[in-house]
């Protein structure tokens, strides 16, 4: 019988009550998603239409695949306590590199993919090194890198360029029943990222560095390396999204990334999925939910032909409200 155990009162540990269900952001997102689909069904039905037709289901997936892939990468960066504002320009660059190298030839697909992945990795390396080694805040570092890429892209290209061969375009258009190849690619990236985060040392270290960099370092983690690798992975995801968009557009386009607003939207999707902007908490499942939520919202607006400006208003409000809900349920107790 020792004093220590006797003096301490039992810690308040979570029990599986209904309140704790709402404490998990992933559950909240998917509940919201289900609710939205139901509401959408009803609204569109009242409007005399049908919400989940084959086309709209395919549409939802096509619409979310590129953002989804970028957002997975962004999730890694944010979990590690960083963030990446350069993804939008990198996507444009990747689409151009892909289409230019492919130049309409099937034989060039391999080299083009390799080049895109290499360039993306390089950009991620630069982002990571500037943040981890030069100790520049991620916001400024990736904004700076974004400007650098923008300058190069704008300097070299003044419009869509290159040509993606038919066979590669299938990536953007084919589907197996209701599941487009692009969505499978997204799912693949998501599963890999999930696996990485939950089952590998790197994943554990990403959470650690994002949770508290100093604690991680003192525990023997090479934090710079983790940050650099995370940024490389994030950029590679953006590169993959660039490939996918090139397949969809049939060419590379210097504005496809920025027009899509992939930088801020990917961050928005990640936090909508319950990942803490400060890092160290959250995961891939929430992000997938967040992206789908945005896509279903988009589809619903499309079906109801809502003015695109209303969309922005609703989207802004949804993001803030969602994060407010997580803040309410997440961190009640001071650590």
């Amino acid at each position, binding site marked *: 019988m020792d004093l220590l155990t006797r003096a301490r009162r039992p810690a308040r540990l979570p029990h599986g009550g209904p309140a704790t269900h709402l404490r998990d952001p992933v559950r909240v997102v998917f509940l919201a998603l289900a609710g939205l689909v139901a509401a959408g069904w009803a609204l569109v039905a009242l409007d005399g239409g049908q919400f989940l037709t084959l086309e709209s289901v395919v549409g939802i997936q096509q619409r979310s695949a590129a953002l989804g892939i970028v957002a997975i990468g962004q999730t890694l960066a944010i979990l590690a306590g960083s963030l990446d504002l350069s993804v939008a320009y990198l996507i444009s660059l990747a689409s151009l590199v892909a289409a230019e190298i492919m130049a309409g030839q099937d034989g060039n697909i391999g080299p083009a993919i390799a080049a895109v992945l290499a360039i993306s990795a390089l950009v991620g390396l630069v982002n990571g090194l500037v943040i981890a080694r030069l100790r520049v*805040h991620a916001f400024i570092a990736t904004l700076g890198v974004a400007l*650098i890429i923008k300058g190069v892209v704008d300097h070299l290209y003044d419009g869509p360029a290159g040509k993606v061969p038919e066979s590669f375009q299938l990536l953007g258009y084919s589907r197996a029943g209701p599941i487009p190849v692009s969505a499978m690619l997204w799912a693949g990236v998501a599963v890999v990222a999930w696996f990485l985060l939950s089952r590998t040392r790197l994943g554990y270290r990403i959470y650690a560095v994002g949770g508290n960099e100093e604690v991680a370092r003192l525990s023997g983690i090479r934090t710079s390396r983790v940050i650099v690798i995370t940024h490389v992975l994030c950029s590679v995801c953006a590169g993959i999204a660039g490939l996918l968009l090139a397949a969809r557009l049939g060419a590379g386009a210097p504005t496809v990334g920025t027009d899509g607003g992939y930088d801020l939207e990917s961050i928005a999707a990640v936090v909508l999925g319950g990942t803490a902007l400060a890092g160290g908490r959250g995961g891939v499942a929430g992000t997938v939910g967040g992206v789908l939520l945005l896509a279903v919202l988009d589809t619903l607006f499309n079906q109801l032909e809502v003015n695109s400006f209303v969309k922005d208003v609703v989207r*802004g409000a949804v993001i*803030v409200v969602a994060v407010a809900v997580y803040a309410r349920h997440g961190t009640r107790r001071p650590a």
Partner: protein
Amino acid sequence: MKRALPILAVLVLLLAAIAIANPFFLEPAGFLAFLKRAAPLVILAAGQYFVVVSGEFDLSVGSLVTAEVVIAARLIDGDESATWPVLALLIVAGPLAGLVNGVLTTKLRVPSFIVTLGMLLVLSGAVFLWTGGAPRGALSEGFRAFGRGGLGPVPWSVLILLAVGAAAIWLMRADFGRTLMATGDNERAAALSGVRVDRVKIFAFMLSGLSAAVAAILLGGFAGVSAQAGQGLEFSAITAVVLGGVVLGGGRGSVLAAMAGAVTLEALFTLLNLYGISGALEFTVQGVIIIAAVAAGAVRLPRKPTPRRGDAHAAS
């Protein structure tokens, strides 16, 4: 002040380089023209400074500037007599948007990055919803005077800039500024010293909104109504503040240096233009310089220890 020195040195260097390429720059008229152009960004940087030093972000200022210009044009609709009422409305509306940002950030505990990103979306959506997609109406000559005219040879914008600068410096020396700074450094300690941290932060957001309103008046005055009036200004303003050595995360840096950062950024644009760096590569140069400047300024000071009992997370 000590932290402001490096940026002031860089600024002097840039100004000298501009003067070499363009001697007109040394004449009062040339320099005033430069200041006039820099005024909106410098004012926005001052506003952004208050938010950044309190440990937050304001990403909504760009769309707030656009919204204010567009709203002003629609409300004034060329009617001279509407000038002053609308000016007053803008000056109230800016801080009001800041109030919403601040309340959502502090009361709902949503990171300001997200709140102001949401505000950005909501503002741009709402304004264009109201105007049907593109600005309508026109600004009056009286309104335009602030961005175009001047008191003798001195543009109004420069006078307004000086007034805003003086007010910002005064505010930072006053109780408000000191408590704001302490809040950005350690919110919990400030709260336990009786600082109403929510209120102080909300006020910082309101000042940022106010600066956006003033910048909108100058920008709208300078160039007339446009849907792009505020495009990208949030990033420029944050970049300027950081260039001035103010630390993202709060608690450190001077408002003078933040404004100097904005002047530096504007000088950089001017210089690149003068030396005819091709339009697009300008961005590349800008990106490199921003990273280099911030990296060089990041003197390795000891990190804040994470105390045993404290909250392990600094506010975002």
